[in-house]
């Protein structure tokens, strides 16, 4: 059994387990175990991957498994990973794992909730291991659809509206993506031969320029919507604010990364020429995303809105970095994806836990929580500091790699854009500190706060897991970048091979 296929299989088995279990209370346990196994699996995978690399395996993808699925269209179930996907898989396992524990108190339709949640995770895992555009697309949609139910059923506020909006916008994006994928497929053999959905195979040819001009924007926007590309980001604030805790975590933490990952693995990798020609449009958009999201976050009053806008800003940075098309910036993008995944998951987890106690997410209805729930508050501060790019936490590593990388671009335009994007770090500081000041610090406002208990064991498990990884990346980034950086070489070869510079 291929280790990668297990990543799809185990969640499915977990779902089966959840369905079988008689007692509702055991549902959580099963989910916890399932995702725990997943977490261990991804650790093993990371280990095996590094070991394979060190033993001199230089093939582009490792653990490749290729099964023909639909022969006539040359659709395969092809899986394989490189450093980037391994990192994303690890991220997913971490977030899912902590997501399960963050939703330990779920008591309405529990079984259904965990099934949907793990189904979502299945889609994400499948997406990251896929080498075949078709299966990639399949898993992408598979990941989006459970969102509707998760938000619609277990959400809060205008949940139906938000769920619908989110689903429609993301599926709209996937619609564009579908056209893009078909376009790539039918242009994947310009010199004759078999058409292919396989990313690696397509990357060895050059898609005709005329086709690239059409399909690059489609693909990029398709993925970009999920990556909260301005102006297609509006699903994000509503969606996040209505979603239940674990879903926000998973969505902002992992699902939005599908956008960045896809834009990078599909749009740019397969169509670098058009990417270079058209990147200026998207650089403008992503730069706007970065700054605009940050400014948007300043005046929000709902914690989740703040974080949603913050995600717009941070995810904008991912796409921004990818468009720079150089090794460092792309590497930065990967780290940023992971970093943002972890810290935004942490944020949402904490927001959920705070909400569980105060029953409001409006910052001006709360205050002085540091005194009553110090553990959660400290975690929140750490998340905030990671978000504003404090050295020693993951955010700094990611942002700096992006900025330095982007600034190495030979064109002035890109560098000016970088300077504008860099300015977001101040705005980020403003909104993060504003929230911390209003929410956590200051005198504690209400007497009822005295009754709050600090984090329970599952909450601690959930948050600490995330914090450990945030700090790990922040303190020892070279471990991660050496893994992801080497995997970017094929991209760079392809990009450099087209003699841009």
């Amino acid at each position, binding site marked *: 059994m291929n280790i990668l296929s297990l990543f799809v299989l185990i969640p499915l088995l977990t779902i089966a387990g959840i369905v079988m279990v008689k007692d509702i209370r055991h549902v959580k346990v099963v989910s916890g175990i399932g995702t725990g196994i997943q977490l261990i699996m991804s650790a093993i995978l990371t280990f095996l991957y590094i070991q394979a690399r060190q033993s001199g395996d230089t093939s582009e993808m490792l653990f490749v498994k290729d099964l023909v699925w639909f022969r006539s269209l040359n*659709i395969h179930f092809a899986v394989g990973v490189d450093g980037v996907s391994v990192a994303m898989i690890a991220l997913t396992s971490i977030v899912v794992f902590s997501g399960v524990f963050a939703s330990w108190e779920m008591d309405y339709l529990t079984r259904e909730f965990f099934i949907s949640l793990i189904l979502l995770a299945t889609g994400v895992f499948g997406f990251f291991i896929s080498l075949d555009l078709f299966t990639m697309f*399949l898993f992408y949609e598979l990941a989006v659809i459970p969102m509707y139910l998760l938000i619609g059923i277990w959400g809060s506020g205008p949940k139906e509206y938000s769920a*619908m909006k989110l689903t*429609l916008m993301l599926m709209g994006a996937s*619609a564009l993506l579908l056209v893009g994928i078909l376009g790539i*497929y039918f242009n994947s053999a310009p010199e004759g031969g078999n058409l292919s959905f396989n990313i690696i195979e397509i990357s060895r040819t050059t898609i005709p320029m005329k086709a690239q001009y059409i399909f690059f924007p489609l693909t990029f926007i398709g993925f970009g919507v999920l990556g909260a590309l301005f102006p297609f980001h509006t699903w994000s604030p509503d969606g996040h604010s209505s979603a239940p805790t674990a879903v926000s975590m998973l969505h902002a933490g992992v699902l939005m990364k599908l956008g960045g990952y896809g834009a990078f693995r599909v749009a740019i990798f397969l169509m670098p020429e058009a990417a270079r020609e058209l990147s200026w449009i998207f650089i403008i958009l992503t730069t706007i995303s970065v700054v605009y999201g940050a400014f948007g976050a300043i005046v929000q009053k709902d914690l989740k809105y703040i974080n949603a806008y913050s995600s717009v800003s941070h995810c904008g940075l991912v796409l921004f970095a990818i468009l720079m098309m150089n090794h460092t910036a792309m590497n930065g993008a990967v780290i940023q994806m992971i970093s943002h995944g972890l810290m935004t998951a942490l944020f949402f987890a904490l927001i959920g836990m705070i909400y569980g106690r105060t029953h409001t997410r409006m910052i001006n209805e709360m205050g002085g929580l540091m005194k009553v729930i110090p553990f959660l508050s400290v975690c929140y501060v750490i998340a905030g500091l990671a978000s504003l790019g404090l050295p020693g936490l993951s955010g700094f590593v990611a942002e700096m790699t992006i900025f330095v990388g982007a600034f190495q671009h030979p064109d002035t335009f890109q560098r000016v854009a970088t300077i504008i994007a860099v300015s977001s770090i101040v705005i980020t500081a403003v909104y993060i500190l504003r929230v911390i000041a209003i929410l956590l610090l200051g005198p504690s406002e209400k007497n009822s706060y005295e009754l709050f208990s600090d984090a329970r064991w599952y909450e601690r498990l959930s948050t600490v897991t995330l914090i450990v990884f945030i700090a790990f990346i922040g303190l020892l980034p070279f471990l991660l970048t050496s893994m992801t950086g080497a995997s970017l070489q094929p991209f760079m070869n392809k990009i450099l091979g087209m003699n841009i510079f």
Partner: protein
Amino acid sequence: MSIGDFAIMRHELLLTAVILVVLAAEIFSPSGKRKSTGTIAIAAFAFITVAGFLPSPAGTLFGNMYIADKTRLIMKNILNIGALLVLIQSVTWLGRDENRDRVSEYFILLISTLTGMNFMISAGHFLMFYIGLELATIPLTALAAYERYSNKSAEAGIKLILISALSSGVLLYGLAMLYGTTGTLYFEEAAHLLKNNNLQTLGFIFFFSGMAFKISIVPFHLWTADVYEGAPVSITSYLSVISKGAAVFIFIIVLFTVFPVIMASWQKAIYATSVLTMTIGNLFAIRQQNLKRFLAFSSISQAGYIFLGIIGGNAAGMASVIYYILVYIFSNLGAFGAVAAISNASGREDLKDYNGLYRTNPGVSLIMTLALFSLAGIPPVAGFFGKFFLFAAAAEKGYYLLVTIAVLNTIISLYYYLLVVKAMFINANENPVESFKSDIPTKLALGICTAGIFLTGFASPVYEAIRNLSFGI
């Protein structure tokens, strides 16, 4: 004629035999024991369905008037599966008091329409095609008006027969023109004699209108919603799946075998009507409150997607259309089956009645959800694969704009499918449909549909088997 010849046209012969068996059972069984006719009919039909999969020789009979080949065989088998599901689903409803004295008529009519469709698909001559078409239509009008105490049903019947009479008139007029320009009504000969001149194009357009009416293509679709709403649920599902599927089948056969010469023209026609169909169907579906009517508009828009597979005129398109119909049969019958189950149990068919359904009837809700997702083209259910192949077929020929329009339309469709899902899972309801236990036929039918919704997609042999047919193009 020899025994082998009978094997070639065994579908039609067996169906006719079933009609006669039911008729005999109706006539000769004592009036008290008539209930059994339904069982006999279904058993016989199930036998036919299975028998249909036996390998069959290809060939032509009656001087090219009847053609059998693998493509047609698979089409007929697909229709048989669908029809069998419809029959099983209708058992509960037929068991009602008001229907009890008309059970065998129901089977006779339904099976004879299926016979008509089979003849239509196997036709090698426009006369056979026409007779098959009428045989597939006229009894259906009666079935649409089957509900004894329903004004809606009566209205559905009259609307269907009048507009179908008009459409067959138009179609015949077109055939006359084609006849005048080629001098033959045999498919094969006509294909060689067509020259792509104005009169032939006009003839084709008349023919196209007639077919478009059967497939519910905008602007020839307006009868659909009214008839679907008025007709009994099982007939609605039959109309929307089998009748439409058969029409699509014969349409692609005729297009690809008779009209390749004027492909440029029909591609334009299909392009325009496809866009209109998807869009209008979706726009109407958004606001529907009656589930049957809702599914009617949804099935209209599905027809628009099906046209995407046709437009390329390529083998991939043909395969994807056939495959899609198969998927569509399971999906739509799943949805209609759920609607029928709820309608039988509670008599409720409105969207608002579905509020909170999941709390009381989780099973039906899940099946409905799966079916709707399949219709919307959401993975991992089969509809996703079906749509993907349709779009791929159109994209292969460079119709990217059309594909884009189609995929954007799927978003609208997703919206209204989700409205139903929302009603079932999210909306609260003080007076939900009470928990009910379905009887075995309903469960069986829904189970088959569910299995089909999953398996036809994942199991690539299904598609590959269809794809491996040569289609003669």
